[in-house]
């Protein structure tokens, strides 16, 4: 597209990003407000952070959430990568259409329905609701996201590399391990990150499948914000937003550097 960056473009970008970021900025500012009221600025204070870390219920919920996210995203990455490989490389098999349907359906299904359905399954098989049921439910819905990310990488990469490995005497498993996996590794890692974030973030499905003793952080946040603004939640949000921001910026700097390195290598190769 031809670039003619006009005043109109500059204005719409400024207003658009202000709309996207202003609410978050206000939230962060108010987390340092000494007054409990939104209306009054009571001076700078970090007391809400102190209260947050003094609240055992929040710490417990954070621990449950982290445990669930680590286990479920790892399981989802293994299952989702397998599923992507099956979809892209295993050729035809009985029930392939059903399989791809089951991969794509959870991506577009409302969370209330997923949560309800999985809860009814756990009740039907008599599994007590708790951390385990949250892990199983999160693994199931996040593996579909992992498999979409990984299969989009599998589509673009050169199949003949795998075939060469097979021709040279690799077993399919060896070929996968020494050729395919290193190539799709970035996609597998971003799949894991996506699954991890989705699990950390999930409210609705956890709300359905969690038991009384397993409250996740989003569930705790949800039950406190239904009563209105809560400065402790502002403090918690600020912490979470900072972690995400640092993570995303670091990731983009690392990938930028990698691209620069790659270009330099290519140029060096051309010169020699």
């Amino acid at each position: 597209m031809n670039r003619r960056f006009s005043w109109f473009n500059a204005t719409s970008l400024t207003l658009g990003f202000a709309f996207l970021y202003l609410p978050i900025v206000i939230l962060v500012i108010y987390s340092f407000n000494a007054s409990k009221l939104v209306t009054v600025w009571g001076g700078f204070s970090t007391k809400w952070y102190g209260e947050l870390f003094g609240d055992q219920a929040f710490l417990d919920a954070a621990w449950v959430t982290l445990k669930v996210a680590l286990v479920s995203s790892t399981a989802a990455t293994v299952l989702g990568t397998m599923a992507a490989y099956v979809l892209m490389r295993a050729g035809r098999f009985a029930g392939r259409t059903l399989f791809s349907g089951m991969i794509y359906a959870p991506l577009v299904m409302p969370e209330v329905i997923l949560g309800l359905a999985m809860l009814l399954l756990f009740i039907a098989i008599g599994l007590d609701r708790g951390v385990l049921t949250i892990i199983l439910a999160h693994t199931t819905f996040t593996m579909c996201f992992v498999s979409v990310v990984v299969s989009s990488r599998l589509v673009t990469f050169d199949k003949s590399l795998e075939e060469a490995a097979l021709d040279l005497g690799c077993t399919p498993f060896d070929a996968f391990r020494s050729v395919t996996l290193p190539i799709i590794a970035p996609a597998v890692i971003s799949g894991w990150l996506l699954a991890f974030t989705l699990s950390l973030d999930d409210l609705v499905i956890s709300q359905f499948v969690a038991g009384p003793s397993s409250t996740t952080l989003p569930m705790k946040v949800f039950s406190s914000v239904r009563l209105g603004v809560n400065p402790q939640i502002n403090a918690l949000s600020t912490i979470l937003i900072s972690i995400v921001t640092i993570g995303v910026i670091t990731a983009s700097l690392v990938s930028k550097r990698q691209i620069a390195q790659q270009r330099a290598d290519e140029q060096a190769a051309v010169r020699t």
Partner: protein
Amino acid sequence: MFNFRRLFLILTPYLWLGFFFLIPFVIVLKISLSDYAVSIPPYTPLLDLSAGWEGIKSFVGELDFENFTFLAGDPLYYTAYLSSLKIAAISTFFTLLVAYPIAYGMAQAPDEWRPTLMMLVILPFWTSFLIRVYSWIGILSNEGFLNQTLMWLGIIDTPLVILNTSTAVYIGIVYAYLPFMILPIYSALEKLDGSLIEAAEDLGCSKMSAFWLVTLPLSRPGIIAGCFLVFIPALGEFVIPSILGGTTTLMIGKTLYEEFFSNRDWPVASAVAVVLLLILIIPIILFQRNEQKQREAGQ
């Protein structure tokens, strides 16, 4: 050739999804055809396999569509469905209105800005949905940031009531789903061949009419994809109406949740879920077709 590893590779994710995704839906369907009962679990009949064939026969015999006729007869449910459709459609339209200029600006921006702009759009994706919705409470409430600012500027004397109304839900949906609309439109605009617009202008089009006749139609695939990506999740939205909406904002996701947890009527909740799925199937199939067409056009 029988290959054990291949079988294992296919069966593991297959069985997992079959057990944790497909079977639950069969259960939902079954319970939606059952009757409510004051017991644990609160529905009849239960499938009694120990009674053999007779048990299966009596089980099938007791299934009926009572819950669905109940849904059709009770105005609460169909108004909830209709109002969800209306809220999803209107907020999708507003998301498009907000997103298009941003995507257009990004596509026109100098090359070296683009990675940063992309990152700024994607960053909210990784930030908690719940927190982003919650952040609007402090802005929209009666003594919130917006009313404070407007009163300080002297534009209004009494605070506007926005929180706990449908307006707040619209704002919440537009805000939360904006990146889903920006990204596909941006990728369509970025691919657009600039010489087409130059040609239109050389042939006497004004800038405005070149936009309407060339740019907008060529970005249509992005617009369609974005609209589906907003409309489909907005239809079953639960978090936004629960946090920002009031008691008068009916949305089917919230109705389902309350039916299940507050009324403990599992059969009706399951029937609500089945009908919601049936409504969603149409936009989902249209969306898949659109994606398919794009892929074929791209090849």
